[in-house]
């Protein structure tokens, strides 16, 4: 387990910023506690200082996970964001897409969202913008 290097932090921030933009600094600098990113077995975990201190007592090969896994670094050092980061990205998302109840199940099983299944979308969303998908009941998917 170790902190991220400059290069790794930059790559990760670039990826996350595609979804939440400058709200990322609210993740880094939180008023309710010190949270930090730690790398363990190529996976990035977002963990509070308290939990980190507890996790340090476990040996590296026996430690499975700590805090919340945001994603992992692939063998070629690209960052892949995981669904487990959703709870932290959803409140800060800049561009949102709401899908109709009918298309919801289809999306959850991995299919693309068709135009007919699109309920609402924030205005000024550019092409290839990172978005967070919500159901009509404002549940982040």
């Amino acid at each position: 387990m170790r902190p991220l290097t400059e290069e790794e932090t930059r790559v990760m921030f670039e990826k996350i910023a595609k979804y939440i933009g400058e709200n990322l600094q609210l993740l880094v600098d939180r008023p309710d506690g010190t949270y930090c990113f730690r790398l363990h077995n190529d996976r990035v975990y977002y963990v509070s200082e308290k939990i980190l201190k507890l996790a340090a007592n476990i040996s590296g090969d026996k430690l499975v996970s700590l805090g919340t896994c945001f994603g992992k670094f692939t063998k070629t050092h690209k960052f892949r964001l995981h669904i487990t980061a959703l709870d932290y990205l959803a409140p800060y998302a800049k561009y949102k897409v709401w899908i109709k109840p009918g298309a919801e199940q289809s999306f959850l099983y991995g299919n693309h969202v068709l135009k007919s299944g699109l309920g609402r979308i924030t205005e000024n969303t550019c092409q290839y913008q990172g978005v967070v998908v919500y159901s009509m009941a404002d549940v982040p998917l």
Partner: protein
Amino acid sequence: MSPGGAMEGQSVEELLAKAERDEAEKLQRITVHKELELEFDLGNLLASDRNPPTGLRRAGPTPEAELQALARDNTQLLINQLWQLPTERVEEALVARLPEPTTRLPREKPVPRPRPLTRWQQFARLKGIRPKKKTNLVWDEVSGQWRRRWGYQRARDDTKEWLIEVPGGADPLEDQFAKRIQAKKERVAKNELNRLRNLARAHKMQLPSAAGMHPTGHQSKEELGRAMQVAKVSTASVGRFQERLPKEKAPRGSGKKRKFQPLFGDFAAEKKSQLELLRVMKSKKPQLDVTRATNKQMREEDQEEAAKRRKMSQKGKRKGGRQGPGGKRKGVPPSRGGKRKAGLGGKMNSGPLPYGGKRKGGQHQGGKRRK
């Protein structure tokens, strides 16, 4: 008439008086009265005034005017002295030739500390060997002239002999000349090594030691392995093109070990550096949007033009002339190239990838289509 005449006479007298007064003033300006003469060191443009500063003491809290007067007087005296020096003409300018400076200036840098003795000096000191005074030139019989004892064109240079007798027990096919040259090279290399060793000792630097590397006959497997690795890396290309034995494996872990931040480092510092990184990333955002927009625009225009060209070429084939599209092609590239370059330049200038590094793919495609 008479008043005018009187006035004229008066004015002439006045003029003369005025001239006299001017002369006196000038002289007064140049001559300065000092109780003690100043000491001049014209080589350093230095004038030392040993007169007691009574005028300054009398001046009170603000001696500005007195100081200025004193400075003017002393400078005047110095300039007077300079004017008395012998002059010469250098490129249409009159230049005074300054004498040698007499004041000795203090050291600029600190005194060099004593260097540690070289190995030979230590040995000589121990044995009590004193350096014998030798002449620089030696009579050389062969060339019949005085030659240096050592150095360029020295008296007895055995590598320069044109005839060498094969010594009694030597192989008749051996090249004696090459042997002498080789021996000389080895001596030079040894000398250089010793010089560097002395230097390293003087600067107390760590020498790459060849402690366990000499073959002794009874070395352990690890020692042999280490010696082999060092030998492999001690080439001009630092071991890059050395062949390996058929079943030898590549050495693993011989690179530098990476160093990471400690797990519990300073959280505040970590946060600060991350926020700084975010700030930098944010500031670069708008620039990329502009390039994206321009590239997008250019791509669209390209597509339009390609479609138009296709239409024109069909028409041109029918008419038998391809001037139209050719002309059009020539007319358009300069501005496009400029725009593209500006776009690329803009992209290049944004150092580490800003938001949205994926744009690179789009740009390349545009470039290919251009050709």
